[in-house]
């Protein structure tokens, strides 16, 4: 195992880890504040990708405009899901299971809707010239410009959201609502606003993540959010629910772990990659049931 080989694999994990990290933050925030697995988060991600695809392909916008379209699409989807699925569902103070199934229904419905409209096939995702370059270092490492962009943007967003949640009034209020919604109301925090903020942030990140996914793999499909959504949720659990930087770090750990699992074992094992991710989850949950880092929102 040469250092050169490892270094290249590490570079390979940059974009995949970033995609997972951005998604994982979304899961962690919504789980933190509402205590529910937002199963439809993968679909919010998918809708972002379709929004970008549609804007560039059909409306002939430029790629940067497409990125904003992706964010807008995701945010719209996230807020609609919050408004028409979770809010009416939670209003009746249901059992956790009810909300879980509703969220799963929302996910299924959106995925099927997009399948109905666009078909199951993969469509080409637009890209921009400035993302396409390849840098080859003297030692022969290949670095794609898009990976650098994705990594850079992700780091900025992760730091931004972490600072927001940690230090701004709205961010602290969000964590307060996550801890005890009733107590938060008594000091004058509007719980609904905090929940909306969480959905807004989660959706923005999902939109960016969708663009990163599209640029990296060049495709957009209605089922794109399913697999990666599960992986990202695992990352959220590993990172300690509600812990924003934790989720991001865990996203990179899983992204890198998947790459290294394939890279370090003989080719025959590559197909067991899904099993590896879950095995990692089981292992960590048994050793440290609250995740790698301290949960930051829910104290359970």
């Amino acid at each position, binding site marked *: 195992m040469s250092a050169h080989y490892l270094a290249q694999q590490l570079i390979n994990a940059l974009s995949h880890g970033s995609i997972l990290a951005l998604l994982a933050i979304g899961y962690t925030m919504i789980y933190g504040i509402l205590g529910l697995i937002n199963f439809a988060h993968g679909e919010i991600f998918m809708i972002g990708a379709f929004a970008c695809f549609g804007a560039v392909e059909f409306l002939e916008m430029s790629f940067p405009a497409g990125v904003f379209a992706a964010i807008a699409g995701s945010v719209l989807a996230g807020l609609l899901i919050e408004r028409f699925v979770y809010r009416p569902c939670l209003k009746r103070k249901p059992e956790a299971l009810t909300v879980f199934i509703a969220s799963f229904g929302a996910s299924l419905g959106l995925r099927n809707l997009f399948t109905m409209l666009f078909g199951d096939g993969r469509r080409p995702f637009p890209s921009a010239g400035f993302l396409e370059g390849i840098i080859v270092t003297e030692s022969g490492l290949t670095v794609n410009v898009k990976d650098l962009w994705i990594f850079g943007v992700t780091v900025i967003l992760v730091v931004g959201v972490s600072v927001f949640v940690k230090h701004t009034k709205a961010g*602290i209020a969000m964590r*307060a609502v*996550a*801890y005890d919604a*009733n107590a*938060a109301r*008594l*000091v*004058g925090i509007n719980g609904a606003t905090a929940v909306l903020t969480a959905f807004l942030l989660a959706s923005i990140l999902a939109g960016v993540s969708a663009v990163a996914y599209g640029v990296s793999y060049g495709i957009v499909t209605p089922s794109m959010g399913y697999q990666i959504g599960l992986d990202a949720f695992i990352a959220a659990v590993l990172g300690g629910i*509600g812990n924003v930087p934790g989720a991001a770090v865990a996203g990179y750990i899983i992204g890198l772990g998947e790459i290294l699992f394939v890279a370090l074992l003989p080719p025959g094992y590559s197909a067991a990659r899904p099993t590896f991710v879950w095995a990692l989850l089981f292992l960590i949950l048994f050793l440290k049931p609250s995740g790698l880092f301290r949960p930051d929102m829910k104290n359970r």
Partner: protein
Amino acid sequence: MLSIENMVAGYGKAQVIHGIDLEVRSGEIVALVGPNGAGKTTTIRCITGEIRPVKGSVRYDGANIADIPPHRVASAGIGCAREGRNIFGNLTVYENLAMGGYVIRGHLKLRERMAWVYDLFPRLKERTGQLAESLSGGEQQMLAIGMAVMNEPGLLLLDEPSLGLAPVVVDQIYEKIAEICREGASILLVEQDVGLALDISRRAYVMESGQIRISGPSDELGKDPYIIDTYLGAR
């Protein structure tokens, strides 16, 4: 300042409060005492807007607040420290206080109030960066009260501030309550320890089974044979 008239309230079909009248005047401490399950906490919840009364009115500074949602009550000038330490365990002491002052507009004002609370409870200042859940019981109670007064409330609702605390700590807390009142806040104090409550308050209401049984100036109530028999007998 606060006046409750003929209020009826409950949870779903179970009626808990059967028509009470209660008044807190400006600058006074009013105690609401009574046995467990008498409806004291429910009364507090009606004032904070968590429960909407079935009948009757809750007026604060002349305006009916029975129908406004809880998160608006705080900005109307009512602070509340609830039974069971209404603090955010996952936030630091500083952050908790900042949340207590959530409705304050302007950074300077927030700083000023925070300094005031730190003056009131120097212990909190020592613990400012610590997570609230790591504090001791007494410190948590101080924090809860500190949060409630951050907003410089005209009316402070205190629900069982002595619950589960060592007597020494209870004395400290009650000193602070008196101090807060001297700074200008009216206080409605819900307390199980009747003797303690009558000592600090100017007037008191005794609540039993959802109704006000007796009310009057605290020193008079302290001499009332019924009160002595029922509540102060142990003393």
